[in-house]
C-alpha cells in the first residue's frame, strides 16, 4: 500500500474522515498557518475547525466530503498541508475547480462518487481501501463503492508524480 503520492497511483488504505459541503480552503488551512516552513504548514490543517485532526491523522487516511470541497483560495498551502499529513486521497461529491487542479498537479488523488448518494455508505472512522486507477472505494464491510474514473490526462499526471514532472515533455498536448 502506498499513500498515492510520489508518482504512485496504487491503492490507498486508511481511516475515513468525513466532512460536509462547501468546505473552503480557509477552513482546510487557516491563513495564519501560511508559511514556507513545512512543519507550520502541516500543523495548520483544519486547525480552526478541529485542531486534533492534524494530530490524529495517520498515513493513508482518506478524506470523504460532500459538494464543492476546496472552494475558495488558490493557495497551494492547503494541498501541501494535506500531503504533509500523508492523507492518501480525497473523495467528494464534487470539487471546486482550483482545488482539484492543485491536488491533481501535486499527485494527490481526488475522486468523485459515481452515485453521489453513496457518500452515505462511507462512515467516519471506518477503514477503507481506495484504488484511484480502478476508481473504487471498498468499505470495511466489503461494500464496493464506484467512483468516477479519473481519465487519461489525470492518470498521466498522477503517474508522473505531478504536473512539473511533465515539464520536459510538457509541450505535448494532453489527451482527453
Amino acid at each position: 500500500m502506498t499513500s498515492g503520492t510520489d508518482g504512485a497511483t496504487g491503492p490507498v488504505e486508511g481511516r475515513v474522515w468525513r466532512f460536509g459541503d462547501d468546505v473552503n480552503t480557509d477552513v482546510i488551512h487557516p491563513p495564519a498557518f501560511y508559511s514556507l516552513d513545512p512543519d507550520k504548514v502541516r500543523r495548520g490543517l483544519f486547525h480552526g475547525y478541529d485542531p486534533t485532526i492534524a494530530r490524529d491523522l495517520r498515513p493513508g487516511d482518506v478524506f470523504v466530503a460532500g459538494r464543492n470541497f476546496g472552494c475558495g483560495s488558490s493557495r497551494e498551502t492547503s494541498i501541501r498541508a494535506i500531503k504533509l499529513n500523508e492523507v492518501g486521497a480525497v473523495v467528494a461529491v464534487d470539487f471546486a475547480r482550483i482545488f482539484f487542479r492543485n491536488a491533481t498537479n501535486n499527485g494527490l488523488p481526488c475522486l468523485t462518487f459515481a452515485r453521489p448518494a453513496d457518500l452515505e455508505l462511507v462512515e467516519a472512522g471506518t477503514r477503507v481501501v481506495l484504488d484511484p486507477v480502478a476508481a473504487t472505494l471498498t468499505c470495511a464491510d466489503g461494500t464496493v463503492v464506484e467512483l468516477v474514473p479519473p481519465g487519461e490526462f489525470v492518470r498521466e499526471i498522477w503517474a508522473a508524480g505531478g504536473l512539473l514532472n511533465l515539464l520536459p515533455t510538457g509541450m505535448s498536448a494532453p489527451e482527453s
Partner: protein
Amino acid sequence: MSGRTISDIIIDAHSLDEDRSALFRRVSVDAVLGHDATTALLIDDFERRGLSIWDKSKVLLTNDHFAPPATAERADISNKFLGWARGLDMPNLMLDKGICHQLLVEHRLCQPGGLIVGADSHTIMAGAVNTCATGMGATDILFTLATGTTWLRLPPTIAVRFTGALPPESGGRDVVLELLRVLGEGGAQYRSLEFHDETSTRLPQDDRFAISNMAVEIGAKFGVFAADEVTEAHCRDRDGLGPGEPLLGTPVRPDADAGYERVIELDLTDLTARVAKPWSPGNVVPVAELEPTEITSAFLGSCASGRLADIRDAAEEVAGKRVHPNVRFVVIPASVEVFKQALRAGYVEVLTEAGAQFNHSSCGACGGIDKGVLGAADVCVSSSNRNFRGRMGHWDSRTYLASPRTVARAALRGAITPDLYREAQ
C-alpha cells in the same frame, strides 16, 4: 450544432490543438499574474529545475499580501519573492503598488478577448473587461511561466442577462450578492458565467469588476462580460487611445445562436441592498430582512470593492458625519493609483474627517493577513469577497459581506440594521 459562447470563442482563438473536440485543450496565454504569497511557493521548484520564463514582458508581478510585511517571517517571504523577481529582471514587477487584480486591469496586458491565468482565485475579475481570466495554484502557474501554455477543460456557459434599471443606492456588489443568492456557493462550478448588461442605466466599469470578481464565489471558471461600449470606453481611456485609433484587444461577443447550459435573467429594477451572513458568501439576504447586528469593525477594500467608485460611495455616505465610536473603520484603496484619484477627488479627507483610517494599498485583513484582522469578539461588515469562518482572523469572529455603501452606513450606525436604507439620511 449551436454557436459559440464567449469562452468558446476565446479558447478556440488560443487553442494549440488541432482537435477542437478534446475534453482538455492545450492553450497559449496572453499574460500571467502572480503575487508574493502564491509565487513564493513556486520559487524553489523554479530554481531547482533550472527553468526560465517564456516571455517576461507578459508576466505581471506584485507584492500585495504582505505589503508592507507585519511579521519577520512574512518579511522573509516577501524578500524571497522580490529577490527572485529582481534577479530575473522582470520588467513588470510592481513594488507596493496595490492588489494584483487591480494592477492587472489597470495594465495594457489585460485586453478584451484575451486569455489570462493568475496565481490567485480572484484573477477571474479581469472578465469585467471581456477577458477570459482564471485563477490557478502555484504549480499550474509555474508550468505556464515556463511554457506560456496551460490546459483547460472547455466549460459549459451560463448566460446572465441583467435587465431593468439599477436603483442608485444599489451597486455591483448587491448585484453579485443577489446572483449568489440565486445560484448558491458553487452554483456555477466549472462554468463560464457570461454577463450581458442590458440595463437602461448601464453597469459602470467598477461595478462590473465587483461582479466578475465574486463570480469565483459561485464556483465559476470565468466571469466574463460581453464587450460593449462600456468595455471600449474603459480600454480607450486606460490605453490612451484617440477616437479613431483601433483597440489593442479584440472585443468578443457570443454567436447569435450560442449554446448555453442555462440563461438567467436578473431584473435589477427592484434590487435592494444585500448582505451575506457568516460564514458563506452564498448566505445572502436583503439588508431589510436582517436582524439588527451590532458591529465592531467596518472594512472597505479588497480586490472586490476597493476602487474609486466604491470609495466615492462611502465618502458620500459619511460626509459631515462621524463613524460610530464602537467601530473601527478601515479603508484600503485597491491600488496606489486608486488612492491618488481618491485623494484628488477629496474622498480621503472626507472619510478621514469622519473617523475612517486608511491603510496602504494591499489585501489587508481580507485574507486574515495584515493589519485590521479580527479578534474572537469582532463582528465586521466588509466589502471584501469572502466571509469564510476564520478567514479574517479568529475562528469565532463574524464577517458580513456588503456593498461599500452599506459598509459606510453600518459604520455610522454601529450596526447593520434592517432600516439602513429606510430612514432619511
